[in-house]
């Protein structure tokens, strides 16, 4: 291993400090004995215990997970189909317009998306609750899935699908048996992306949620407005832990797969 020069070391330290000091402070204070957030009074896990007793937070967490699972699944199905048609559908009328339109929500201010969804739900008389949040999250995360999947489809060898047709598949079977298994990694990462987007969305959820259903980010935000409590710190620490474990697992799995594939290819060359 090469040693870093002092300049590089300082730059790296500064960068990482900038990124992680806020989170580190949050984590440290979540284990604070004192009720006063900014005064250290010894190590304790009491806020975690209290959090587990807090009905409102637990409900919000449950709603958030439900919304994230449903909306990301729905967004993945719709986004994958849209990407498939846009990449594979040939040059149909208005194709350029459609592919531009599917990416537009990426740059649309969330406030506008949230507001227009709110107006729509009021207009059609849909009571705001879990369903409306799911629909809203599907709307804005679908285009992310579509971007991820279509970038995979562009590099997909078309002759694989033709081979499937040639060997007796209908178009639907070719998609199910050949295309989908091959693009699965892109579909899965699209799902994960949609899931995280839904998990931490505050703006759109606050437009489309009702008294019956509150998501965790809304709950945290409104609680913080009344003052930061150590319970919030504990909750946030748990969320950080979950995300960290998820990211590390995903990267380890990918790394393992790449390593295995390379090893197998080396063996093939040798044999």
């Amino acid at each position, binding site marked *: 291993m090469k040693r870093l020069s002092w300049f590089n070391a300082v730059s790296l330290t500064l960068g990482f400090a900038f990124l992680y000091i806020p989170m580190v402070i949050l984590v440290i204070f979540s284990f604070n004995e004192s009720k006063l957030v900014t005064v250290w009074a010894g190590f304790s896990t009491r806020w975690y215990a209290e959090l587990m007793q807090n009905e409102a937070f637990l409900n919000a967490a449950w709603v958030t997970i439900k919304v994230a699972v449903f909306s990301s699944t729905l967004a993945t199905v719709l986004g994958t189909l849209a990407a498939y048609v846009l990449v594979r559908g040939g040059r149909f009328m208005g194709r350029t317009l459609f592919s531009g339109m599917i990416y537009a929500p990426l740059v649309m201010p969330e406030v506008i998306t949230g507001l227009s969804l709110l107006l729509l739900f009021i207009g059609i008389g849909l009571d705001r609750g879990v369903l409306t949040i799911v629909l809203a999250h599907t709307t804005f995360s679908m285009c992310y899935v579509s971007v991820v999947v279509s970038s995979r489809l562009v590099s997909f060898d078309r002759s694989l699908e*033709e*081979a499937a047709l*040639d060997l007796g598949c209908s178009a639907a*079977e070719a998609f199910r048996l050949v295309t989908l298994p091959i693009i699965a990694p892109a579909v899965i990462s699209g799902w994960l992306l949609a899931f995280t987007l839904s998990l931490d969305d505050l703006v759109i959820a606050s437009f489309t949620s009702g008294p019956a259903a509150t998501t965790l980010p809304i709950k945290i935000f409104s609680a913080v407005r009344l003052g930061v409590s150590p319970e919030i710190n504990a909750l946030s620490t748990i969320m950080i832990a979950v995300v960290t474990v998820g990211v590390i697992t995903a990267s380890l799995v990918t790394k393992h797969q790449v390593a295995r594939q390379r090893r197998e290819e080396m063996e093939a060359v040798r044999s």
Partner: protein
Amino acid sequence: MTASVFEPWNDPEAKPLIHFQNVTKRFGEFTAIDNLTIDIYEREFYALLGPSGCGKTTLMRMLAGFETPTEGKIFLAGQDIAPVPPNKRAVNMMFQSYALFPHLSIWENIAFGLKREGMAKADIQQRVEEMLRLTRLEKFARRKPHQISGGQRQRVALARSLAKAPKLLLLDEPLGALDKKLRQDTQFELMDIQEKTGTTFVIVTHDQEEAMTVASRVAVMDHGKIIQVATPDRIYETPNSVYVADFIGDVNLIEGTARPTGSDTYAMSWHEGLPPLKVQSPNSLSDGQKCHLAIRPEKVAINAEKPADADNAVQGRILDIAYLGNISTYHVELPTGAVIKAQTANTRRIARRAFTWEDTVWLSWTATAGVLLAE
């Protein structure tokens, strides 16, 4: 015609397996296939040969069902196949990129088409094993496509496309991705498998050597048209046009004017002050017609002295010698300025070579060595 020779195209009774009838295919403004009519017979190994963009791949894709003709009809065993989708045709294709399913093992790749057919499990097992044996892949059945070498992948693609026992197998540049040595071995393997299975093969290639080696008949294409369909030897010995002569192998083209001297003999005047060339050629030409004499380099003999009894002899000066190990090609400049290539087998060591640069030599060939081609 004897029974032992396979020449269904010469048999007026024979019914073609595939019949293209005035087929035209246009992509927008571009005409890929231009009013083309051909017959392909059962058990034939038919090669479509031409430069890229000549329409050979389009022709094949129409047979597979990935393209539909703009005009005209295609018949497979007497049945118009236009309304039959690719997955219902008794035609299979081996793709240039092999298109092996990367998520399936070799075994599953070969079984893929059989499963779609709804074949019984035991029969699938048996058929896949048969295919693995045929292509010598038994050891690799459990591997994934990325775990085997290029040559093995090529054989998997072949096994997979043959598994359903199609009436017709289409091969799109099947050996393009292999290196030369492996390609030559595989060509013989292909011929062997074609003979064993009795399947009709249509191969698309831009490699004329490959077409000549494997095919029973070669169709030379250019700009969406078939220029000549014939057996490899006839394509080589008696091309019907300058295009075919030039496309297949190496050729010397001498421009001149034809004058018939008999039923199939001509005297071609080619340069003032030099005697006309004697040619016996199957293509009939009128008196005074502009034409080219096409003659292969290996049919031109090179000598130090003027051969006494040669039909044609011209004098020239050696400009260049290309030494290829087994043969040498001499580039000889004639007094007219034209350069003629003459090829000789190097039966002696190079040190004993008779000629060197700047030597004055005599080139000679017989009347039957070349053919006359109209402009």
